[in-house]
């Protein structure tokens, strides 16, 4: 299989789409049509390799597959670089796109253009890629290609006639798409005579093979056994194995201009590989670094603690293991009075956080407690320096700083015209600033708002969905930091301040927010022998208060005969539940109470 393709016979492309528009199904079809997988053996959605991905129907990590396909008697190498498809992952989409010359913009022919369709298409066009629109699900009775062509023209300024039609489900139109990939997308440029230059567009940890580096060849040739130099990381490795995914990894003797493949070396940990870094040759003339890649900035942070304090080191190992195949996770040890030793962890977004948390519990079997997520804040200190904080507890005393800046994102929201009012109100309530409104078609509109990121990381997406009967979609761009009148809302449980529960919020909403947190705590914290006052304060001023009444009757009504063993076991179970609780002063707090600040039944 390891025959060589000259650059003009190579196409590097990806599929970009809104979630559930059928990207993975289309990729599966490509694998089938090109004979990369035996139809009878294929598992659905080959490219989503993790269980969790398949379960949630989303692609977490990009994958790359080399396909060979004959068009008009000529054999082509088609490298399909998969991109993830959720709102959190614009950064990962961007990484993958940089390894491609073209993109298939897949659009559900019934649903039409959605917020991520726009965002991904913009991303691709900014990189000067050839974008080929493809309407999927044309077999659906309510497919409406003509209207979507209007939307294409109105929103993306793409020609209506440029769109292809297919049904990834039935297989109709698939050959035409592959033809368009060859005919409409440019071949990679690059010179085989120049020094080795390749782009790292992803990296994964494999339990058996170690670190697998995904690379896209730009110039020169990479041979098995070459010693390579990673420019940004300034490290050297031997190319112990190189190859292509077809879709299983197949070792090759060399990779050359335009090809996409993998590299295995004795790289210890994923952190040693920087996605976006440039690979060149160790000895001889080295290539200059490629431009464009930047580090992912974690925009959602939370504390993660082991339920059993003895599991701290296990948690560290588990996080390290996750970081092996998800370099976007950031974590640093932190400690808290109530929760003991744990880690402050940074994630790309809320979905990323949920996935990591689930994987942590699933893959390591650890019980963890999570604190409420927060965004990073920039604090302008009196001495002129800027402090970036990732938890409310890190906010210095108000006398030491002059300003707090919070991340603001420009959000594009596409909704049916009849729900504009609801969504306008939602955004206004969340401190949004309205920017503009554009009609995509007679029934759909795109609203653009500037919103504080802190206001959308909790349940904004759910509210958007429920306010639009499920039709609303959103996407947001990289944040900027703007000053705002923010305060630290302190929470006191039985007069003891619980930093784990404190939250940074806007001064205008601190009272409402405080009350909501306290009411939630009131529900979550079981009664104690004594009454527990709950207070929310800004500085020294109490803005809300509630009480948890002292324990009343707690005795099993009936106990005799055969109940004894069972009754003892019930008490032991209750005790187990108590052991899992954490303490704030002398108050025992169940783990989920630490998420009380997420409460929005305000």
């Amino acid at each position, binding site marked *: 299989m390891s025959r060589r393709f000259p650059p003009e016979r190579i196409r590097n492309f990806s599929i970009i789409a809104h979630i559930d528009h059928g990207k993975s199904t289309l990729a599966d079809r490509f694998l089938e049509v090109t004979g990369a997988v035996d139809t009878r053996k294929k598992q659905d959605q080959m490219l989503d390799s993790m269980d969790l991905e398949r379960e949630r129907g989303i692609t977490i990590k990009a994958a790359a597959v080399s396909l060979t396909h004959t068009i008009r008697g000529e054999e082509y190498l088609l490298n399909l670089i998969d991109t993830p498809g959720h709102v959190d992952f614009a950064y990962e989409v961007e990484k993958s796109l940089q390894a491609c010359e073209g993109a298939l913009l897949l659009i559900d022919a019934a649903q039409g253009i959605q917020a991520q369709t726009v965002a991904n298409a913009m991303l691709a066009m900014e990189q000067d890629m050839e974008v080929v629109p493809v309407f999927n699900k044309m077999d659906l009775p309510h497919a409406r290609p003509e209207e979507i062509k209007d939307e294409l023209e109105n929103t993306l300024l793409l020609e209506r006639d440029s769109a292809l039609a297919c049904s990834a489900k039935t297989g109709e139109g698939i050959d035409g798409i592959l033809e368009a990939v060859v005919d409409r997308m440019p071949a990679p440029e690059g010179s085989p005579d120049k020094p080795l230059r390749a782009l790292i567009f992803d990296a994964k940890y494999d339990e058996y093979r170690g670190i697998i580096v995904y690379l896209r060849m730009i110039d020169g040739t990479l041979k098995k056994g070459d010693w390579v130099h990673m420019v940004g990381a300034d490290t050297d490795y031997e190319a112990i194995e190189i190859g292509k995914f077809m879709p299983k990894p197949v070792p090759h003797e060399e990779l050359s201009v335009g090809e996409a493949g993998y590299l295995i070396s004795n790289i210890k940990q994923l952190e040693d590989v920087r996605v976006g870094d440039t690979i060149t040759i160790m000895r001889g003339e080295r290539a200059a670094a490629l431009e464009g890649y930047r580090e992912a900035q974690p925009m959602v942070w939370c504390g993660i603690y082991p339920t059993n304090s003895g599991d701290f080191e296990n948690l560290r190992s588990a996080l390290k293991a996750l970081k092996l195949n998800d370099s976007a996770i950031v974590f640093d040890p932190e400690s808290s009075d109530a929760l003991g030793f744990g880690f402050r962890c940074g994630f790309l977004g809320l979905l990323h956080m949920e996935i990591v948390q689930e994987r942590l519990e699933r893959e390591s079997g650890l019980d963890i407690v999570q604190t409420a997520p927060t965004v990073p804040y920039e604090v302008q200190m009196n001495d002129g320096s800027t402090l970036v904080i990732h938890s409310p507890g890190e906010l210095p005393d108000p006398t030491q700083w002059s300003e707090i800046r919070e991340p603001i994102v420009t959000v594009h929201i596409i909704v049916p015209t009849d729900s504009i009012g609801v969504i306008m109100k939602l955004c206004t309530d969340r401190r949004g600033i309205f920017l503009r409104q554009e009609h995509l078609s007679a029934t759909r509109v795109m609203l653009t708002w500037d919103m504080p990121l802190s206001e959308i990381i909790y349940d904004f997406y759910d509210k958007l969905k429920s306010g639009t009967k499920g039709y609303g979609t959103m996407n947001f761009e990289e944040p900027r930091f703007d000053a705002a009148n923010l305060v630290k809302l302190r929470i006191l449980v039985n007069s003891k301040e619980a930093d784990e529960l404190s939250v940074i919020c806007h001064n205008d909403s601190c009272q409402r927010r405080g009350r909501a947190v306290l009411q939630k705590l009131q529900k979550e914290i079981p*009664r104690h*022998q004594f009454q527990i006052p709950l207070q929310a304060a800004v500085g020294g001023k109490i803005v809300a208060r509630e009480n948890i*009444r002292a*324990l*009343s*009757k*707690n*005795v*099993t*009504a*009936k*106990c*005799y*005969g*055969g*109940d*004894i*063993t069972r*009754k*003892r076991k019930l*008490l*032991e179970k*209750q*005790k*187990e539940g*108590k*052991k899992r609780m954490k303490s704030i002063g002398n108050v025992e707090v169940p783990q989920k109470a630490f998420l009380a600040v997420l409460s929005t039944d305000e």
Partner: protein
Amino acid sequence: MSKCRYCDFNSYAWTGQELDRYVRALLREAELRAEALHPQTVFIGGGTPTFLPADLLAELLVELSRITGFRSTAHEVTIEANPESFDEPRAQAAAQGGVNRVSLGVQSLRPEVLRAYDRVHSGERALEALARARELFTRFSADLIFAFPGQDPASWEADLRAVLASKPGHVSCYELSYEPGTALTRLRNAGRWKAEDSDLCEELYLRTGKILAEHVYERYETSNFARPGERCLHNLAAWRNLHYVGVGAGAASWHGGARRKNIERPEAYQAAVESGIDPVGECERPDANTALFDHLMMGLRLVGEGVSRARVRAATGLDPVDHFANQWQAMREDGWVEWDAHYLRTTARGALLLDSVLTRLLPGEPV
């Protein structure tokens, strides 16, 4: 007849023939495990033995007495009964068979409450049954349930007073509890049944104690009240963690160093017994620490009496106060328990919080 919604007893629907077979199996087990046991008390319960036909009930008692010899040794022979099945022939059969005490499952006199529980009797039938019990037996008790959702304390009080007018020597007042696997628990979990909050339960508990005290009933156990000389000796023995042998499907025993429970499903139970096999389902031999905990778990329910230190030492080799010295000290400071050289007991406050008291004794956290 149907299963009551709060009931987590081992219960099944039967036909007449099956009942006959079951009684034979039960007697066979008694022959295997309780021959010449000569018990001091007998309790025929575990639900509704009075749904046996009168002749079968009579036969059961005669045979049981023949096997165990209870008629010459037992001071107290109790039968549990439901108002709807406690008719004249059965009552007569029980009395003639040596039963001298009846425990009637009145539960409530309110039609709406009884309906909600899926009980088939009515308040009038319950009062009639109480009158019959009074006529035929020297001792009788009424079981009642409080903390029905939305129960107004005044209506509970009226029920209680109406029952007291029948002058039972003993009353059990159980807070409605939500046992795993019952219809009620399923309804509650599905959000279709709202349990009362613990403040109201406490108020009802205290009010119940007060009313009964006015009528000279002593609260001798968490949920049990007796006039002088009317305590249930059989249950008292269980709370003192003394031994007993239970026969029948799902019956529990505490005997010979083992806590055991019979096979629950009648079919499997009968099959075992008919093959001459001991129908044991689960069995554990508590170690000293577990036995000590059981003594406390049961004994502290005896509100005035508490746990006899000497008896526990004799049974387990451990002193209940010294063994948990730190925990008791802390709880005494909280006003939950008190003790002297002979007995350890809860205070009135501690009695209300007994589950918390016991949880604090379990290993796993600093005191």
